[in-house]
């Protein structure tokens, strides 16, 4: 018999960390305010007391240093989980991530692997202003050598970490800040979770909504809203942003003949642009309407609450885009 329990996204990440720390003594955590404070988003609360300061390491305020040190530790066989408080601060570690973690396996002729996991919060919507509200996962998804995942559900938050740790390549996990308080029921006995495939979160026949991370819930709600008007939308959660799972996307678009891509990043040069391009490359003759994109307004993210809300993709924007593609074409 399967037993279940209600878990928040935050607790799920914490359980995943605890599980990894318990299963493999090579695993350790490193980052700012992760120990005594319990993490900026309270993800690692209690882990310092449980695992001690050698495995739950509060670091100096040096992003480049703790990512670089994580790479060094991974090179000699440790399994570091580096927390960069938010994607905004990862800009200070770009050289280590892009020039070192992403290239070393290749440039060492395969002598090295970098089994490093970097977790970071991403996204806007918490009134933190332009410099603390970035959605830059699309940038990282541009880099060969990195694996980029975005758990949008509690189950993925619980399961992706271990899979990422088992992966010999550096894996970046993007957790959207709006997700930490979401909750779901998980089975006590958890099956392994893959980090390769997109998932169909809602099956539908009229249009495919492709999204990930913080905009999945909004997309599902939008799908329910249009369902009331007789439009049956399929919602795909990308889960893995690099490499992208083209097969799941194309399979869906070939059935629905319409696609809307929802991405909290800025439209120009975005992940949404990449997906849209792939659909036109691979499924152009199956489309009944041009692909629509719902992205963030191309300005620095506003700080004032009402402006920020207006700038970000909202359920109403997704509904409007779905209606446009359904109305358009044949």
């Amino acid at each position, binding site marked *: 018999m399967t037993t279940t329990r209600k878990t928040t996204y935050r607790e799920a990440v914490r359980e995943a960390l605890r599980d990894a720390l318990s299963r493999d003594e090579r695993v350790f955590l490193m980052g700012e305010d992760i120990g*005594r404070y319990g993490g900026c988003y309270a993800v690692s609360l209690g882990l310092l007391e449980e695992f001690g*300061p050698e495995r739950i390491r509060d670091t100096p*305020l*040096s992003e480049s240093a703790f990512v670089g040190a994580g790479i060094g530790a991974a090179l000699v*066989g440790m399994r570091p989980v580096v927390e960069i408080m938010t994607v905004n601060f990862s800009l200070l570690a770009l050289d280590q991530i892009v020039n070192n973690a992403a290239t070393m396996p290749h440039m060492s002729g*395969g002598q090295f692997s970098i089994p490093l996991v970097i977790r970071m919060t991403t996204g806007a919507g918490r009134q933190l202003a332009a410099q603390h509200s970035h959605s830059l996962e699309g940038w990282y998804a541009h880099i060969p050598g990195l694996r980029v995942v975005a758990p949008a559900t509690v189950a993925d938050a619980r399961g992706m970490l271990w899979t990422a740790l088992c992966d010999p390549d550096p894996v970046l996990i993007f957790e959207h800040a709006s997700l930490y308080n979401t909750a779901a029921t998980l089975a006590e006995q958890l099956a392994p979770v893959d980090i390769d495939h997109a998932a169909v979160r809602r099956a539908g026949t009229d249009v495919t909504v492709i999204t990930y991370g913080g905009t999945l819930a909004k997309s599902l709600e939008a799908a329910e809203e249009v369902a009331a008007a007789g439009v049956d939308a399929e919602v795909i959660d990308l889960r893995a942003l690099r490499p992208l799972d083209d097969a799941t996307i194309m399979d869906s678009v070939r059935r629905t003949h319409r696609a809307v891509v929802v991405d909290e990043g800025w439209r120009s040069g975005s992940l949404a642009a990449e997906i849209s391009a792939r659909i036109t490359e691979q499924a152009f003759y199956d489309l009944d309407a041009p692909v629509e994109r719902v992205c963030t307004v191309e300005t620095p993210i506003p700080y004032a609450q*009402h402006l920020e809300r*207006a700038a970000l993709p909202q359920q109403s*924007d997704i509904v*409007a885009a779905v209606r446009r593609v359904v109305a358009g074409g044949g």
Partner: protein
Amino acid sequence: MSSPERWTQPQPAGTPAATAARPTSEQVIAGLRATSEGGPELVQLLTPEGERVHHPEFDVDFSDEELRGLYRDMVLVRRADREANALQRQGQLGLWVPLLGQEAAQIGAGRALRPEDMAFPGYREHGVAWCRGISPKDIMGMWRGTDHGSWDPVERRFHLYTIVIGNQCLNATGYAMGQRFEGKVGDDNGEATMVFFGDGATSQGDVHEAFVWASVYDAPLVFFCQNNQWAISEPTERQTRLPLYQRARGYGFPGIRVDGNDVLASLAVSRWALEECRHGNGPVLIEAFTYRMDAHTTSDDATRYRHSDELEAWKLKDPIERVRVHLSRNGIADHDWFDAVQAEADELAAELREHVYNLPDPPTERMFDHVYAEANPVLAAQRDEFLSYMSTFAGGEH
């Protein structure tokens, strides 16, 4: 080619223990820290008990009027700070970054600046802003989100707040290099720049690079580090093994630790450092040894990581109280005068509150302003499309 797995074999259990030279994490957690003592090098002119003491290098004679002025400055900025903190709690501001406890460091440094000097703040420098003639109203408008950059940094000689930790140190270095290249240093009429950052920022690469650049280009720059003992939850021991002011030696310029809760010493040392810089002998590092008496920001809860006895110990070193005792004991100010300052502070708070309540929400289209200096056709099209879409909602609601 070898298998990647070759490099990922399990390691033996156990990691090296902490060395004896620094506190173990357990000691830190147990609160076994001696942060409230600044050590023998601490420059102090006014003790926590309000006693005026003298220093062989940094002594300054203050007139009674100056002393009263410094007290008034500190009382007013603290009152404004407390009001803003309360307004954030009432939902009137998105965030507030409390200044509480750092009034002396900031008023001392701020009053040492000459009008022509330049200052680069972090995000907590409400006291320095006050000294540059910037109203707390403007700072509150920024934290409410009604405008971006409420003051003119060129006119006020005070740059806009920098949110990213420590990166203003590089901007300040560039600015100070400019002052030197333009021949504005070298005599009594020279200019200088002061940059404000914290103990946490000293671990950032940007701050190291600023130290290197400012030193090799002899920039007229005072690095004013407010060591308030905490970088959110991380104590100073997580950033440094040796007192921060001693780092300057490694870069080849002087470093001084001043009692940051002593407004007289903060002013005297800052004035000296700025003089050094305007005469071409910069840079200088000042470590103002102080304490963040409130949380990091209104999103933080400091009780999660520090003990109340530490705060209580620092309350005995309060920057305002020691000046009050000094003024009172020496007959420099009487009861009526103190009451008048308090009344002025309460009046300021009421005025600020009223101002914040009445700040209008900016129109939605304002988010498209100033993304580029001149209108950009792509952005203009997005703006028009956006506004047209917004107009389809009742009352423009999204």
